[in-house]
């Protein structure tokens, strides 16, 4: 009955903005190429990173460099929100009001879907020519390539990621020291660490059952049992996934055991990621298994105790992927300028800015990373990259799987269903999604 006025205002604002900024009506050949670039005097650029985050800072510098190198061309930057782009990109890009280059969410349901509809430019040739394809390790490149039906992992290049992200373990060094504990290096040691905390009456792992963290922990546990082929089958449908197989069974049963053992609070089903993060920042939990996206915030907000990261003990594979992508819409009026801009963002100096501000650069020179705290995270990330160990996210394969995972893993937290039942449910939704995708 009451729609939130802010959202409405934001929407109206966006529409007005889009309508007001109908720039020159350039060539509409739609084939990418270099139509209209020669005489373009502006590059309309959209992204949704906060201005003081790692990407925001690095890209602001890239815009400056671009304008210096292209006298007479101005970048019309418009800041968007993640939600705005997530929910309206299809409509905007099929209109004439869209940007010439934009940041867009990686994945089958987003970049994949739009590329299969012909709304994004195939940049394979450019990426080869400019050397971008060599800069990205295979598991980073996975999310930049999509086949004809929009499934990632093979086919043509439709975007270029500047940064990566992955799931790791944040830990409170002070609490570890007080308990006389060392950083665990295997899953067994991890269990011992958690047992020690439980014996002291401390819940060792922060958790949030209403959002992504629970599903990611379940996935991390599953990943401890798998090889690359399993991940490819799970994510790219190259082979059947056995939902009652040993890998997923280990994930679900271990998760349930961890709840029983008190490693994870049994009343965390309704908590959101924000609650978990804030609790870690407040020093309530000694550990939190979550993504590198927390890093900058923890640097800013934690004072009073030392903290660090270690990769999920024993895992070769970890949830993670390239970050979001630079894409060039088919309706871009200045594709060549857009490529020039992407090229600038991949330069070592811009990548170093990204890395020194808490981001995970994909093509930085390690020697350029001077910030000690950032080095720690980048080292952990590089460890994963060396194994080509990015395993993407559990909800990626089928649209809407996220909600199913949240609901099912809540059952594990609440103890209201057996792991095998939960896996049946997940498997049914997954199989249905795979059938729809085919």
């Amino acid at each position, binding site marked *: *009955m*009451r*729609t*939130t*006025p*802010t959202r409405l205002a934001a929407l109206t604002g966006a529409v007005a903005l889009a309508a007001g900024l109908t720039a020159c009506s350039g060539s509409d050949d739609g084939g990418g190429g270099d139509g209209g670039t020669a005489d373009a005097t502006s590059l309309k650029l959209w992204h949704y990173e906060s201005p003081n985050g790692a990407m925001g800072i690095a890209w602001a510098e890239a815009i400056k460099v671009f304008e210096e190198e292209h006298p007479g061309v101005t970048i019309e930057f418009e800041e968007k929100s993640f939600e705005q782009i997530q*929910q309206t990109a*299809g409509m905007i890009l*099929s209109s004439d009001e869209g940007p010439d280059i934009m940041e867009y969410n990686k994945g089958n*349901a987003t970049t994949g*879907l*739009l590329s299969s*509809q012909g*709304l994004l430019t195939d940049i394979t040739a450019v990426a080869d020519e400019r050397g971008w394809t060599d800069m990205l390790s295979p598991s980073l490149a996975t999310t930049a390539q999509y086949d004809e039906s929009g499934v990632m992992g093979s086919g043509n290049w439709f975007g270029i990621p500047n940064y990566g992200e992955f799931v790791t373990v944040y830990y409170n060094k002070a609490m570890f020291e007080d308990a006389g504990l060392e950083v665990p290096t295997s899953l067994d040691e991890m269990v011992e660490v958690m047992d020690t905390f439980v014996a002291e009456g401390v819940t060792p792992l922060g958790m949030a*059952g*209403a959002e992504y963290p629970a599903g990611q922990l379940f996935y991390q546990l599953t990943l401890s049992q798998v090889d690359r082929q399993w991940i490819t089958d799970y994510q790219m449908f190259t082979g059947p996934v056995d939902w009652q197989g040993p890998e997923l069974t280990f994930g679900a049963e271990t998760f349930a055991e961890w709840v029983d053992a008190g490693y994870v*609070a*049994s*009343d*965390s*089903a*309704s*908590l*959101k990621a924000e*609650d978990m993060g804030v*609790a870690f920042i407040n020093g*309530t939990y000694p550990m939190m298994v979550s993504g590198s996206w927390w890093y900058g915030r923890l640097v800013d907000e934690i004072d009073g105790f030392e903290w660090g990261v270690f990769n999920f003990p024993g895992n070769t594979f970890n949830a993670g992927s390239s970050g979001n992508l630079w894409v060039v819409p088919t309706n871009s009026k200045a594709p060549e300028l857009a490529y020039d801009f992407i090229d600038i963002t991949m330069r070592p100096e811009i990548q170093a800015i990204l890395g020194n501000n808490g981001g995970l650069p994909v093509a930085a020179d390690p020697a350029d990373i001077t910030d000690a705290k950032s080095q720690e995270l980048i080292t952990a990330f590089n460890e994963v990259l060396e194994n080509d160990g990015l395993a993407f996210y559990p909800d990626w394969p089928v*649209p*809407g799987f*996220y*909600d199913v995972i*949240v*609901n099912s893993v*809540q*059952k594990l*937290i*609440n103890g*209201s269903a057996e792991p095998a039942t939960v896996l049946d449910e997940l498997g049914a939704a997954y199989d249905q999604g795979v059938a729809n995708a085919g």
Partner: protein
Amino acid sequence: MSTTATTTLPRIRGEVSYWAYLVPGGALFLAIIVLPFVMNIYFSLTRWPGLGDPTFIGLENYVRLFQDEVFWTSFRNSIAMIVAMVVVPTLLGLLLAAVLFDYIGKKFSGSVSSGLRAVYYLPQILPVTVVGILWSWILNPQTGALNVVLRSLGLDGMALNWLGSTDTALPSVMAVMVWVQVGYPVVIFMSALQRVDPELYEAAELDGAGWFTRFRAITLPQIKPETFVVTLTCTIAALKVFGPIYVLTRGGPENSTNVPSYFAYQNFFPKSQVGYGAAIATVLTVIVLLVAAIFMVLQARSERKEAEGR
């Protein structure tokens, strides 16, 4: 929307110009209500990810819908929402309005009762996102104010996992909705009470009628039109409720608080199953229209009865 133009045009032209006044409203109605409604019905007969061309699949979405467990859960929850947003607030609102008007307003002063009325109405003014975030803080099982208070009173057994357990999530959401909703009937009923002729009460009082008798025999029948309005608008709001669910629980845990609008949203946007989402929205619209029609028939009947009774 009502225009109060008192033009003195010739009679024939006058009739034509009435139609002219309807054009802007009619055009808006067509563009904002009718067209999307028809499009929605069309989409509900297709499979469509939101981009490209929809594939026509006939009634497949509806067949799937009626077999979908979550769909039925969401409509059962709609009934719970009607209890929480219509039945309880209307009864409670009636009581509060009567107490504020008859007792507080007379024993203390008008400003006290209007002050209290404003306080009851406050939750209605707060944006729903604020309400949702506020309550999810209060109800946080580990650090929330409610459980902290309960634990400090030694009532650890009562400090439940309010929004996280399937047993308590729906009742918790219902309690929040009562809190949000109650101000609306209070305000409407208080203004209705001011409309009632005081002579009726005085006459009844002289005849020795007590407070409850007067309430039942005079107040209730006199404010019937307002009661219809309140129950109808609140029922429609309850059937369409989205914001509080989105902010408080996202339909969880385990779908135990999912409602039709949120379920439709889940399919429209995150799942990109626009056709299926449209089918849910269509069923929801049909139910809302049915409920509204039933209300209107009941109201008309009761008015007719009253007119005959006089």
